[in-house]
């Protein structure tokens, strides 16, 4: 079937198999930041934005994205860098495999709620698993990022 998906601002028209997941679609179109850590919607590694909202691309058919906007970290490089440097300053990126999904979701969180409490952060990002960091370093990085924003760092988005 033919779909037309706006991927990171670029319109892509493709003939796909109806059972293709959105995860597979974005990777086949070069968005390698999107990872898979499970097949059961448990890990959050495959997070992408669907019309601006974070979703799990392993659990959505590409066909459903027909006519919609999809963004991956490839399309959000500036935000990724701006936020990611605070994770890097903690050494909390470790193996890094979970990072793109977590950072996508963190960007979404800050768009919705620029000054979340720790509890709100943990709740929002609860679906983003990380096996390396124990999460504490990610939280420190998030705190440092929020502090930098408070001090007038460039606007997010």
């Amino acid at each position, binding site marked *: 079937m033919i779909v037309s998906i706006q991927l990171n601002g670029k319109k892509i028209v493709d003939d796909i198999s109806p059972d293709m997941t959105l995860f597979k679609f974005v990777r086949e179109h070069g968005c390698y930041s999107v990872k898979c*850590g499970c097949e059961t919607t*448990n890990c959050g590694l495959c997070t992408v934005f669907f019309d601006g909202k974070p979703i799990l691309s392993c659990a959505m058919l590409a066909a459903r994205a027909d006519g919609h906007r999809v963004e991956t970290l490839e399309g959000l*490089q500036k935000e990724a860098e701006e936020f990611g*440097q605070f994770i890097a300053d*903690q*050494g909390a990126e470790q193996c*890094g495999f979970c990072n793109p999904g977590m950072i996508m979701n963190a960007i979404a969180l800050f768009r919705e709620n620029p000054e979340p409490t720790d509890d709100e952060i943990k709740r929002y990002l609860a679906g983003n698993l990380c096996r390396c960091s*124990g999460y*504490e370093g990610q939280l420190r990085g998030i705190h440092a990022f929020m502090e930098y924003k408070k001090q007038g760092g460039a606007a997010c988005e």
Partner: protein
Amino acid sequence: MRVVGQRIRKKDAMQLVTGKPVYMDDVAPKDCLIVKILRSPHANALIEDINIATAMKVPGIEVIYTWKDVPNVRFAQAGQTYPEWSPYDRLILDQHVRFVGDAVAIVAGENEACVDRALKMIKVKYKVLPALLDYHESIDNEILVHPEDNWESLYPVGADNKRNICSHMEESHGDLEGTFADCDIVLERTYHVPAVNQAMMETFRTACYIDTYGRLVVLSSTQIVYHVRRILARALGIPQSKIRSLKPRIGGGFGAKQTVVTEIYPAFVTWHTKKPSKLIYSRYESQIAGSPRHEMDIRVKIGADKDGTLRAFDLYNLSNTGAYGDHGPTTAGLTGHKSMPLYTGNMEAFRHVFDVVYTNTLATGAYRGYGATQGIFALESLVNELADILHMDPVELRLKNVVREGMVMPAYFNEPAASCRLDECLVRAAEMIGWKDKYPCRDMGNGKVRSVGIAMAMQGSCISYVDVGSATISLNEDGSYRLAIAAADMGTGCDTILAQMAAECLEVSVDEIFVSGADTDSSPYDSGSYASSTTYITGQAVVKAATELKKRICTLAARMLECDVDDLEYDGHVAKDIKTGKSVTLQDIGFKAQCFNDLALQVTESHTSPVSPPPYMAGAVEIELDKETGHVEILDYAAVVDCGTVVNPNLATIQVEGGLGQGIGMTLFENIQYSDKGVLRNNSLMQYKIPTRRDVGTLRVEFKPSYEPTGPFGVKSIGEIVINTPAPALAQAIHNATGGYFRDLPITSEKIAMYCLEHENE
């Protein structure tokens, strides 16, 4: 020190946080054949007939291999130095399948869809055999997991496949029975740890292709590029010179990728078809056919005096290695070697005996902690129980008996504790958690109880007399350096840490050194990244290489300046003849090295060690336990670690926090359950619950760095030890809240709630 000890960003940090394509499946050739494995539905069976004719007709299928197509040469998948302690008990594909999930056929085709179709069309006739599922019944059972005659054990580890024994070893010191008889109290308990999974976020995976010279290139998510090469050469029956093994970035390993779990299948496909291929395990496959921790029963017995003097220790562990013996003998050894020496203080006698046995369950492997985790859970839990019986504070009891700097540890190969601040770690962890006020518990009056628990841990810093680490450092023309290693940065940051050490020696910044590897074609030999060895062993090789290279740089500079080396002043960037005031820059020297020069500004050094200095730590936890639901909330976890010199405090801290997280998961949620047919039920992240960020509580980490004289800059290790304290510390906190002793992991909410219900009226 300028660079060692600094919080330096990981060299790959910004690439990782911006999601750049650096992992195996991001960089694998795009036209790979997709490889998948047909797996056995039976725990023990013989393949009577296997028909691939229909499956081969599926459009797009390239090739299907069965046991008839592979060499009849047994090998071990465990990534260990030759001669491995692990038995040679595997074939690439075997007519005899030994666990539910064992490989039956390899299918390769153009795309996933056709391979999936073909998998369903292979017709297999099994002769189903009775399965041996309970490891308590393994020894001398009439069901033999490995009846074959070409099974081989290379090392005298007491193995006997005709008795289902992968290893049996004994070790003792002092008059054990006499000391027990003389003790005021002797306490014995048995503990159980299941075969928990590493659950690294990137599952097992490998891609293979043929290079310009017709050689096999193996691009794998592995911790052990050189062992991969050696193991594949044997299994495929081709010379090592025909194989290049390399790793890209790795999405986590934790020991899982110290075993050649996936490599052999695409390697076989590519070697025979000469086409690129790749195999990516699903999470399901990683759970049911991966390489988890060894399930163990650990029976510990301690002899003590009333005043809390711990005098005699006896530890027996029965380890379930599953269907294959990878890492079986070695893990079981650590269960004793890396637990009992904690109590060297007043130890008069000890004994350690273990059996490692085969069953028809998933084969096990290496997981952070590697046997020590199981031993420490048992020993530390028993010491906590003993403290209750003696009415002593568990912290005081430990302080009376811990190993202290300068002691010789009979239970640790008589190695000296040359660097040890364990006592201070313990005192500080207790202080951080508020032990004096909070031990044992406080009833919050709402059905909830707050309580605390504490435990100690140790590990090693390499495999003594075995591990080899190497480093090649070369000066580039522009004055920058290349550091080539075959140690594998799996997120731990060893690329950066080793560059920090080189930078320190060469008097430059970390940014002036780039790191390459791990690649058997271009990196000097290294056993690989496991056994907590990289910083300690490869680090020392880096120091040796950098020191020698600096010497050569000065020699060449002296030649250029026509002066005596002794008259040279060198600051890392400029060499100056103090007599004449003339100088040359590092760049000048770099260019000179490329022109009419016979002094190589490239040095390779190796290092190995006769000792494996233990890092030590203490962990203390405060929990809030809901007696009605059994829910345990971790409020605070204080960890204090003596890992020797801390090379990069950021990365060391994250190692600790990550290890605590895994330890917490293993203690409270992560379970392995089999059906009575031997089917593993916890086969996804839905059933196998690893901690989320809402489950770990607040983790606080401090260091008490000792100085290890045999380590580069005084370092020991940190990678593994950090997983060892949560199980005993949490078990004690749960005991202090409920009164129950939980000796079987995981201590789930259900178990706690049931216990509270049964003891409601006490």
